């Protein structure tokens, strides 16, 4: 693939519902990152995967948020019991390795609106 892809591009859900967001990284990229971008704010780190190492979950805002990645492929970010404050753009990025932060390539994001 040409770049990082994310799906869905937009998601509208009702408060209390669960949502699942998907990220397909660039082939061969071992590192994968999830960020949250609230309106008018910068990017907020959520979670990081590097190969088969234990993920860094230190940015997840609550236990309603979780993410998985199988090997060096697709990742899913799950938000359970969504709240209105979860409304944001969720961005995924991948890089060849964690030791070269300048090679982070971002996907277009998933715009989540919780009503």
């Amino acid at each position, binding site marked *: 693939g040409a770049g*990082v892809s994310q799906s869905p591009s937009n998601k509208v859900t009702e408060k209390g519902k669960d949502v699942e967001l998907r990220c397909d990284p660039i082939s061969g990229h071992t*590192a994968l*990152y999830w960020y949250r971008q609230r309106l*008018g*704010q*910068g*990017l*907020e*780190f959520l979670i*990081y995967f*590097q190969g088969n190492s234990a993920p*860094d979950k230190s940015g997840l805002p609550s236990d309603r948020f979780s993410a998985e990645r199988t090997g060096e492929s697709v990742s899913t970010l799950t938000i359970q019991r969504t709240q209105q404050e979860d409304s944001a753009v969720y*961005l995924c*990025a991948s*890089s060849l390795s*964690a*030791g070269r*932060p*300048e*090679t*982070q*390539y*971002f*996907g*277009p*994001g998933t715009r989540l609106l919780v009503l």
Partner: protein
Amino acid sequence: QQQVKQSPQSLIVQKGGISIINCAYENTAFDYFPWYQQFPGKGPALLIAIRPDVSEKKEGRFTISFNKSAKQFSLHIMDSQPGDSATYFCAASNAGTYKYIFGTGTRLKVLA
């Protein structure tokens, strides 16, 4: 101490003018400072980056100026064009780590 403060929040520049966006940080352990450009509906894309061993880096019309003693760095866009209209984010990290601390973004509009 982990914050990166970015200003202005929005900027309007005439075509051909110079756009200047400023960022300031507190954490002296930061040693990698990238700038990202984001167009509507797209993810951020790396524009230019600098390490603190140099005071300036230039790539085409884009220049980063870095003042280590003041803990400030800025992006200058020379000969600004309408196609430069986008949101710009500064960031900081420790080189070799994966965590970026992002500024809040500057929405630039270049008038034709």
